[in-house]
């Protein structure tokens, strides 16, 4: 694919920070500096998947598919062993 190499180069520290923010991860400056080239390496490595012919291939998300839909009967069961205090968090604005 023509611009996959360009895509890989796009992985810079800004992107790392943006993705880390999506995942609510705090990275130290050191981590940002170390991770970014490592990320680029891995994404560079997985680029080879672009050369595989996947036309007409359905993505596989479950090794068991097709399988019987596993359903539960609508019955109540009380679980008594969890804490019953409210979970406290900073003010949600």
């Amino acid at each position: 694919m023509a611009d996959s190499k360009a895509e890989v180069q796009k992985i810079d520290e800004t992107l790392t920070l943006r993705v880390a923010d999506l995942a609510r991860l705090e990275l130290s400056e050191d981590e940002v500096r170390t991770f970014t080239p490592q990320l680029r390496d891995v994404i560079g490595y997985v680029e080879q998947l672009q050369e595989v012919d996947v036309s007409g291939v359905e993505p596989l998300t479950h090794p068991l598919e097709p399988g019987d839909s596993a359903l539960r009967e609508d019955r109540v069961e009380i679980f008594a062993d969890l804490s019953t205090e409210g979970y406290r968090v900073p003010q949600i604005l």
Partner: protein
Amino acid sequence: MNTMNIQNDFEAVIGLEVHAQLATDSKIFCACRARLPGGPAAESVADVAVNSNTCPVCSGHPGTLPVLNRKAVEFAMLAGLATNCRINPRSVFARKSYFYPDLPKGYQISQYDQPICEAGWLEINTASARKRIRIDRIHMEEDAGKNIHLSGFSVVNLNRAGVPLIEIVSAPDMRTAEEAGAYLRALHGVVTYLGICDGNMQEGNFRCDANVSVMPRGSKEFGTRAEIKNVNSFRFIEKAIDFEIRRQIEVLRAGGRVIQETRGYDSARNVTVSLRSKEEAQDYRYFPDPDLIPLRIEDSWIASIRPRIPELPARKFERFVSEFGLSQYDAEVLLASRAIAEFYEESVKILKAAFPDPSDLRAAAKAAANWTTGELMRLLNEEGRELSASKVTPAHIADLVRLAQSRVVSSTGAKQALGVAWKTGESVETIVEREGLRQVSDTAALEVSIDKVIAGFPAQVAEYKAGKEKVIGFLVGQVMKQSGGKANPSLVQELLKKKLS
């Protein structure tokens, strides 16, 4: 409310997203309670003692797994069938990722590509027309918990997390607030009649978000839309939409841009207010949930639940209007609750035996409607009672109608009888006999009283004979007094007129 107050150069486009809580016993992916007993009037499970209705699964403990509630699937299928949707033979659950304290796993299990139902529609009636509103999709998802805001911090209550929801997404086919209101009421009727949702907007089991935009009339491109959330009555939603349409038109007229944002409704001031900007669209990173195998729905399953669909409000409406000759308004009032509609129909069924002639039946049906929407509903509302908890039965209404039509009791007497039936549940016949509510329609007996009154009030008799027609009322009243209120007033008037002519 003049909802046609849309300036001619602009058109409004409205789409609605409804989240209906499914009335299953247990949550969608675990065995905690989804609802408390008590039907539509019950308290929401969200409001029981904080976190007393959770388990490791719905509070997202490590290592737990979701298992889908069969009944929730069936309820979603019923919703799809009743709204003419296609039920997908294969549908996929997807994870919708975002961070928020009321979302224990950091993602909501929902459906994205391949929802359970697609491409349906609902017919609505407005004052001016009948219209078909398309339904893009219905999908299943789990409800989130609730955040309780205290001073300086918030507290998360997960009692409601995992309650099953269906999200019903309409196409942006509505053009006025009135149409939106009609669609919502119709949809509410469908889900409550099916018994899949309690429909109590106050308790949050039927929630509606409106997407509203405006565009120059005739334009092919929709304008930027704002989303209105957290409005919990049909009336307020209509008013909010109405306001928002006018607001957006004003913005555009003034040369401004409509911002894509979320807005709430302030009912005191009748305005919509900005809640948060939707400028940066959230990246939910949807992907198929690997803990749940795709749902397969065979035709045989669909066939087995189809019989569970009762006659739905739209069809009943048609019958009430055409067969029973009710006005649209009366029909709508009766149909607001499945319980009332079925009660009413039962009473008409009983009346069919007494009034074989179709036009007589129509009159009787109309009377039954009046009794139901009038006196009966007044009593129910006064005492805050559900129909199922009252002692009045369809037979009571049918008997009252019959006795009133044949003038065995006066309308006052009938009202009295209903009041007693409400308290004791006794049959109308028993009550009428015991309380002596039979009207006197015995002509001979009446003539005796009439003669007495004619003799006793010569002045008024003379006035009547002189042409003052209204005086007959006074004379009838006197006869009624004589008979202790038991005389049949219209018969009395008839006889009086005869005698004085």
